[in-house]
């Protein structure tokens, strides 16, 4: 299980989904995509795995979190599978307000 650290780039083992960790607590977290643990972006997935789990497909450019908001995962490449911690699907974060100026 790769450690979730701010800046870690991770990929799915069952589809094209890739993510980057924006923020994570110090605990060990079982981040899964399509029911299987994520791997480091540079790693080759285990062959022959298929997606399981009910989470909705993660949308590219969107941020996902869990209750408590101590975790933030940004999807950098979309796919068909969803994000979960163990069996618990992550939830989509609402867009933040626009700034007053740039």
């Amino acid at each position, binding site marked *: 299980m790769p450690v979730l*650290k*701010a*800046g870690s*780039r991770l990929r799915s083992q069952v589809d094209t989904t890739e993510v*980057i*960790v*924006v*923020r994570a607590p110090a605990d060990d977290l079982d981040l899964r995509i399509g029911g299987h643990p994520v791997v480091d972006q540079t790693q080759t997935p285990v062959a022959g795995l298929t997606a399981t789990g009910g989470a909705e497909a993660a949308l*590219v*450019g969107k*941020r996902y979190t869990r209750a408590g908001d101590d975790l*933030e995962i*940004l999807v*950098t490449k979309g796919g068909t599978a969803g994000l979960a911690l163990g069996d618990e699907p992550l939830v989509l974060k*609402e*867009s*933040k*307000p*626009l*700034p*007053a*100026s*740039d």
Partner: protein
Amino acid sequence: MLAALVERWLAPILGAGAPLADVPEPLSGCPHLDWAASGAMALTGEPDGAPALAPGPVLPLLAAISTRVETLSAAAGSRVRLDPGLLLGARAAAAGLGRRGAVSAGGATRLLPARDGWCAVSLARPDDLAAVPAIVQGDPGPDPWEGLADAVAASGAAEICERIRLLGVPASVVDAAPTAVPPWRVERLGPTVEAGAWEDALVVDLSALWAGPLCARVLGGAGARVVKVESTRRPDGARDGDPRFYDWLHGGHDSVSLDFSTEAGRADLRRLIRAADVVIEASRPRALAALGVDPHRDLRPGGVWIGITGYGRRHPDRVAFGDDAAAAGGLVARDARGRPLLCADALADPLTGVVAALGALAGRAAGGGLLLDIAMADVAAGFASAPIGCGGAHPIRSEGGDWYLTCTTLRREQRVLPPRAPRPTRAAALGGAHTAAVLAAV
């Protein structure tokens, strides 16, 4: 010469046989003296040092565009006269901002040196600041800018910008040698119709902040009815900025607020868009698609779609703000040692707004059916790379708290004038003030 450049931009819209515009009113004859008089130069340079020159003929080119905006608006509606200096300095003057060197006037963008070049990074939103630990892959320390600057200094400019952008944070490599590119790509979405007048034309403005609303303001001046559409959950953040500036941009426009999270709200949005003669948006194409909006399907016959993005619709994931987009186009000043400084206040914003208005005016004159894919960085590059047109030396001196710029060719001196604040004549509508009335009419 700059008028000819504007005609080359317009040729794909108006056709090659279109009549040439009148030669624009000469300003001083020296683009640097014009820059000094405009209010923009006072916003450029180190705060405790001399104001700095722009790399291109910003004011003369803006004047050439303004001349064309005037002729096109007068031909099909009310004549719009733009005040280039006011366009560039309005926001900073309204908010009381001054020059800050490599930091933007608004404070959200900074130029940071990398190993092999310079990067412009904007931390304008809470999410941008929150992304810094992930960019630096560690604790950035108490000042996120300091940690970010260290990470940039240790990397190649292109490589670190790619990493920063991966986190959705606007970042660009400062283009040290910008090349002339047209500010838009023209895409035909449907057949042309007989060109309509601007009186009673409907402009639906989905954009926020500065560039898109400025375009809407110009079209409103030509006679169009402008409807600004905002999300109830995410209204235009500029409403929280200086009210004079917001009123100046939006006074006289109808305001519609829709809840995009409901199917009813999204259906109302599509209905409005399908009724529009001009749609102005500055969204990622993906965000529009998520709302069920598709320019290819939803633009009415003869309509013009103005799509403003940082880098064009071919780079749909790269967000930009006015200062980092200007830097991406090489529209930066230089200090005595050649280090880049940000130019004026979010310079790519007002330039893009005026260019977008020019495109909308020309597109409607040509019978519409067009999407103009306008990239803020390309607009900036167009201004940075245009021929400067004055070969003289331009020394600057200070006296009695003021700065004076001299053009040795013209043998003239110009005091560096402060930016001018806008004088709105009408207050902007409160968010959603016209929702029911506008929806009942379309």
